[in-house]
């Protein structure tokens, strides 16, 4: 049984998702409402980062514009829930659809571009898209953005069920769905073709892969995740406004995914944790010293910059890479007779 569990990707990722759901369910019961809110932030960041890590880590493209794709998802949810009175779940599905369609457009343009040229277009996308909200204030609410009503916990959970816990459930459910889909995708033939195109485009096309189509697909997958994350952001914060989707957001998504460890879904968890927790921690550090106003106001930003530079110099492959190296060094000492984990898989039933 355990051998089959190890070989079936579907069963294994289902097990991971169920285990994750149980852990998160227990966690949300015991966390304060502030920490539940932070958990929902972490969940929607994770959703976006997991998609981005597939695009950058597994397919070798780059995007400085995923904040713009999050905006597409967020505005879709805000328009459908706020104006049309849709329920949240179908609105989130619609957010995935609209952002995927945007991803098809950007991704098709991206297939002709490499490296800094792709970075330039996606950067211009992140900077340019939010200005649509200013151009069409009647639809998108201008600078103020669109507000929606908070999601209501169903009545069978009791009338005193805290809103923050319900929001955390919604965000974590979305994150787990994204995790389940991506885990299967990464280990399937699609995942292999993504990596093949990243490693050598010419060899991949000789093997019959359509390079441009695979690259567009990678962009669409990551755009769908960004749209889902953006839609959950709109639901949790009850707002979709251009101020939330600045270039800084897009850049911090990129830094989160690299800091966590490129190409690894576990790395996306680390990245999301950094994005959510680091601002609070650096604020606490800044206020624990009695510094002058200017210095303490800018210290959190400075700490963020130092963390980015320092981690790239110390752990070039991100936190997950560092953890893996540490584990590789410690585990043989703890269990000297442990069989090598790099054993090739046995043939037979899959």
């Amino acid at each position: 049984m355990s051998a089959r569990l190890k070989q079936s990707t579907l069963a294994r990722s289902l097990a991971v998702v169920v285990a994750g759901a149980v852990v998160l369910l227990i966690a949300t019961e015991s966390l304060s409402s502030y920490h539940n809110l932070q958990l929902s932030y972490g969940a929607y960041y994770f959703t976006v980062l997991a998609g981005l890590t597939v695009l950058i880590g597994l397919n070798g493209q780059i995007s400085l514009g995923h904040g713009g794709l999050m905006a597409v998802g967020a505005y879709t949810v805000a328009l459908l829930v706020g104006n049309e009175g849709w329920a949240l779940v179908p609105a989130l599905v619609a957010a995935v659809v609209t952002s995927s369609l945007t991803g098809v457009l950007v991704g098709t343009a991206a297939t002709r571009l490499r490296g800094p040229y792709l970075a330039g277009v996606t950067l211009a996308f992140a900077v340019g898209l939010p200005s649509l909200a200013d151009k069409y204030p009647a639809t998108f609410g201008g600078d103020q953005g669109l507000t929606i009503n908070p999601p209501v916990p169903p009545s069978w959970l009791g009338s005193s069920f805290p809103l923050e816990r319900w929001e955390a459930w919604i965000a974590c459910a979305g994150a787990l769905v994204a995790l389940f889909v991506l885990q299967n995708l990464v280990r399937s033939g699609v995942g292999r073709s993504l990596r093949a195109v990243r490693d050598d485009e010419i060899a991949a096309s000789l093997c019959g892969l359509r390079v441009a189509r695979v690259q567009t697909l990678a962009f669409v997958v990551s755009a769908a995740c960004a749209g889902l994350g953006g839609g959950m952001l709109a639901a949790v914060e009850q707002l979709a406004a251009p101020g939330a989707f600045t270039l800084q957001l897009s850049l911090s998504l990129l830094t989160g995914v690299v800091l966590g460890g490129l190409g690894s879904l576990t790395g996306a968890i680390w990245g999301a944790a950094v994005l959510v927790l680091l601002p609070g921690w650096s604020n606490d550090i800044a206020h624990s010293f009695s510094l002058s106003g200017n210095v303490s106001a800018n210290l959190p930003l400075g700490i963020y910059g130092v963390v980015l530079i320092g981690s790239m110099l110390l752990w070039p492959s991100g936190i997950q890479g560092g953890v893996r190296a540490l584990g590789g060094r410690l585990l043989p000492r703890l269990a000297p007779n442990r069989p090598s984990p790099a054993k090739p898989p046995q043939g037979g039933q899959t």
Partner: protein
Amino acid sequence: MTKFIDLTLNGVSTGAVYAAVALALVLIWRGTRIVNFAQGGMLMITTFVASDVINSSGSYVLGFLVALGCGLVLGAIVERILIRPVESAPPVNAVIVTLGLLILLQAIAGMIWGNSPRGFPAAFSIRGYKVGGTRLLFAPNDTFIVVLVLGVALALALLFRRTDVGLRMRAAAFEPEVARLLGVRVGRTLTLGWALAAVVGSLAGVLVAPSVFVGPNNFDPILIFGFTAAVLGGLDSPLGAVIGGVSLGLALSYVSGYAGSSLVTLAALVILVAVLMVRPNGLFSIAQGRRV
């Protein structure tokens, strides 16, 4: 008609600044294959220093020269300490390091000089020339900007094509191994490239400061449009950087004048996509086989 002329002249003058930033980015890209997002922060720091020098000494020329000198030193230090370790790492790591440096420099500037922007003097009068009774939106200071940027571009072209140092820099950029075999100190040459680029960047900072003011985040749009201009022209071509910068300046000036300033960033996206769909490596790319 007057509006068209005004927009054109204004576009040339802002485009010249984009061109200078694009030149700085192109210099670094050619040398180290890194897009230096920290350029916006580096030129912000040097402009702050220039502002302090001008305020305390009263001499614009002194402040100007100090800014360029600071750029030279800052560029060399950054390359030596921060960039050298990530040169062999995956390219996205270098992107993160330059982004981290941009954030760090903005924080440092905020700590030293505060977050509220301050004014910066212009080198020459900013009252427009008078032609036949109407005052143009083009002042002696704009002439100064355009002439200076064109002069720098020309000087760089001469440096690369006509001098030994320039030849060594080109060799170190395109074939580092062979250049090293032939006795070029590749590391030192790359440092020089970064220092030169930072000088050009700090020039752009001082030139644009009178119109955007000096603050930790005030140069972000200059960096974004400078990068757009560099990509537009082709990151390997200094000539492309200049032409990309001026054409972007012109196009955005027309869009802002005729269609409203809220569309400027969207127009930049449309222009960039339209150009790159036809020429994926920028306007002035050299036809080359894809590296396997």
